[in-house]
């Protein structure tokens, strides 16, 4: 062949060359990915930064205004004024101060123009006092009294005496609260159970029957005993509270007034202006500890979120327990047994469409079906006495079980679709190999197909759990409450209470952030709760991913 007879090929234009190499497409795709990563990283780091910073102590500033008024607080925000206003007035900006003097001023926060400020100082003994109720107080400790006796006078001595006396007083208070909540609660439960027994006997054997009078006799007997035991408890708590009574710390607030605070009413007090790094860290960790381990205080805007963590995790796990077998079995039938045809296709399309139904619709379904039909039916059969005696439904209202089931329905399509994908990814040669060994269909599925598809099924479950744990709208209808301190799992027989209402972190974000009377103060809490929710979902996912990678190592070959 003569090479000269062939026409020489060359690029016709720069444009053709560009398209052939596809350079712009690399940029387009890469920039899309970069944008997505930037958004995710930006959002997560904002949440992490604000969430983690919430509990770090901030210096207290004593701001003296030109008119002589004094404001004492943490500067939480600064902003420049509108340029035009600034030009007219000639001042640079304003700051938002968290005053901690709600009792006197009626404000938690105050905007202060920089021009109006005469003096700013950071008093060494400026103290943040977290009170059990009535919110924060910013002031300088002046004296510690026990009744009329002054135990300590002056900031330094009060600080020492406080460090000595506060843990004791607080311990007594916590003991009294424990008695009220648990031991008294137990007696209440017994009394209630006896009352229910009477009503039940009346329902079973008729009013005034032998059985009912027997139950009434037992109730009276029990009531006497309970009264005696309650008296002992009363005495004990009265003694504890009496020992605490009279202990008062007096603080001088910004306005110069002296505010007495009961010693056992102080959750925590710290002097941010004189704290070392270690001291800061101590306060920080102590506040985190309370946040993770305690019940909420003050309309959820302070204290801990332990019930919500518990509720979120329990609900997500119960949901996973329901949705996994259900979804996998459905997908198995659809992929392995059902013949190919219009019906199968229609079912598959319907399942895919279910994934697009707004979640509130599932909530409405859960309320209408689980609570009002199934739950009411259960109440009618098993909890009639409670219904009659208290007028309160047991299962016939929102609760952990119904919320979990509703979310299981919501996430079912995710699991089915993912499982189907995983099943269809199992090579047919494996199925044939198993059949050739004389295995039946179910043996093949159980021993070959399912183990091989397990990593893919886990992926579906991970997606479902992430979706379920972050869902709020349906939960509002089927059992999530603003405050539910009684956990669904506790030490009271029968230990698991699936009918109880519960708290949920995602709902807490909505409640604290947008329903709180003191939303400005609650805002850092919202970031912290969001951070916590993201962290919990990440933790659940990481666990599942770790599990999946273990399975994958076992079942999928990397080399050939």
């Amino acid at each position, binding site marked *: 062949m003569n090479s000269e007879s062939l026409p020489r090929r060359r690029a016709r234009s720069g444009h053709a060359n560009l398209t052939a190499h596809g350079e712009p497409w690399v940029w387009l795709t890469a920039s899309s990915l970069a944008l997505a990563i930037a958004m995710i990283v930006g959002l997560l780091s904002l949440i992490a930064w604000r969430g983690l910073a919430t509990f770090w102590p901030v210096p207290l500033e004593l701001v003296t205004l030109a008119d002589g008024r004094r404001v004492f607080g943490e500067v939480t925000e600064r902003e420049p004024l509108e340029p035009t206003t600034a030009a007219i007035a000639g001042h640079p900006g304003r700051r938002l101060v968290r005053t901690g003097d709600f009792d006197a001023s009626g404000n938690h926060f105050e905007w202060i123009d920089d021009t109006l400020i005469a003096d700013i100082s950071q008093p060494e003994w400026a103290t943040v006092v977290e009170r059990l109720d009535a919110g924060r107080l910013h002031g300088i400790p002046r004296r510690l009294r026990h009744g009329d006796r002054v135990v300590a006078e002056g900031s330094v001595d009060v600080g020492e005496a406080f460090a000595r006396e506060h843990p004791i007083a607080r311990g007594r208070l916590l003991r009294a609260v424990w008695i009220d909540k648990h031991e008294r609660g137990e007696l209440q439960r017994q009394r209630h159970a006896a009352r229910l027994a009477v009503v039940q006997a009346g329902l079973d054997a008729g009013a005034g029957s032998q059985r009912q009078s027997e139950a009434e006799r037992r109730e009276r007997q029990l009531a006497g005993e309970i009264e005696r035991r309650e008296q002992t408890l009363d005495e004990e708590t009265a003694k504890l509270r009496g020992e605490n009574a009279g202990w008062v710390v007096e603080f001088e607030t910004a306005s110069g007034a002296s505010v007495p605070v009961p010693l056992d009413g102080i959750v925590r007090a710290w002097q941010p202006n004189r704290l070392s790094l270690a001291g800061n860290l101590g306060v920080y960790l102590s506040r985190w500890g309370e946040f993770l381990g305690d019940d909420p205080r003050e309309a959820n805007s302070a204290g801990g979120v332990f019930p919500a963590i518990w509720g979120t995790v329990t609900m997500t796990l119960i949901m996973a327990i329901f949705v996994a077998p259900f979804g996998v079995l459905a997908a198995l039938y659809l992929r392995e047994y059902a*013949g190919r045809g219009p019906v199968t296709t229609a079912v598959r399309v319907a399942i895919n469409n279910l994934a697009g139904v707004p979640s509130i619709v599932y909530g409405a379904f859960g309320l209408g079906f689980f609570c009002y039909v199934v739950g009411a039916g259960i109440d009618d059969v098993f909890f009639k006495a409670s219904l009659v005696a208290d007028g309160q439904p047991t299962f016939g209202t929102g609760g952990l079980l119904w919320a979990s089931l509703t979310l299981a329905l919501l996430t079912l399509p995710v699991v089915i679709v993912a499982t189907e994908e995983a099943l269809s990814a199992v*090579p047919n*040669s*494996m199925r*044939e*190999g*198993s*059949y*050739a*060994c*004389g*295995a*039946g269909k179910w*043996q093949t599925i159980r*021993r*070959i197909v399912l*183990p*091989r598809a397990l990593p893919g099924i886990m992926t579906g479950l991970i997606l479902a759990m992430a979706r379920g744990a972050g869902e709020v709208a349906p939960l509002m209808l089927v059992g999530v409450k603003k405050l539910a301190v009684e956990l669904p799992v506790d030490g009271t027989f029968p230990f698991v209470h699936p009918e109880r209402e519960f708290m949920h972190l995602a709902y807490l974000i909505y409640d604290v952030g947008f329903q709180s009377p003191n939303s400005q103060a609650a805002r850092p809490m919202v970031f912290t709760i969001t951070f916590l929710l993201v962290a919990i979902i990440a933790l659940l996912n990481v666990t599942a991913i770790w599990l999946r990678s273990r399975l994958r190592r*076992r*079942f*999928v*070959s990397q*080399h*050939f």
Partner: protein
Amino acid sequence: MGSGASMQSVDRARQDIASEAVSRPGEPPQDRLIAVAAGLEVEAEVHDGVLKEPPVLEIDRFNLWYGTKQALHRITMPIPLNKVTALVGPSGCGKSTLLRSVNRLNDLVQSVRITGDMRLNGDSIYDPRMDVIELRKRMGMVFQKPNPFPMSIYENVVYSLRIDGETSRGVLDEVCEMSLRGAALWDEVKDRLQDSALGLSGGQQQRLCIARAIAAEPEVLLLDEPCSALDPIATGKVEDLIQELRGRYSVLIVTHNMQQASRSSDYTAFMYLGRLIEYGATTDIFTKPVLRETEAYVTGRFG
């Protein structure tokens, strides 16, 4: 399409091709092949030697269709007991289909329809009363690509016993060792029986599949191009293994590789477009075939 006139014209064209093929002397002798391609039936040339052997499996006038397309045409051939029988032929000639019909794996394909029958030691395979699961337990099969199950080496070998509900550790251990020794794999894996089978090399995986196939003491062993996905060394090992299995098992092997067929089989069947063309002792097929078409194929002149 599909009208009577066009069908007739196709038939005429086929006859033209056939007559042209026969009437052209001097060219490579492919007249039977062209006749087969034109859709004509051709009688298979089965040597007497094959018919004298006691058969383990008898294929009797077996036809198979995928939908409306016929893939096997009246295959009639006995498979001799305890001998290695190779099926050769160009791609798409129905070798694998025939093999998969023996243990009824084609049942899994919805559009398959068959007529005729096969008999395994006298039992009709396609008898409606035949339990297909029990039938498959009497055969072992090895596929083109190694397909070890996602479990340990040990569990792979004893799989067919496990699904039968065998739980005795002693029995399982014994069968595992015997099968792995039978598949010439024991020395390589005896120290890691509990490791994943997916960690083995391709050749080891294929011998593991053979061990799995012989674990249940099959009456006939079906090998579907067992070396096509292996490198030459692994191929050599599997071929050696087939030599060792010779005499102990009845082996039916599909292969694309003429050397493999000539080296490792006792009998060879040449198939073309779903028909059996010639079937006889391997030495005869490769050195003095009755048909020129067979000679042309085994010497590599087409296919």
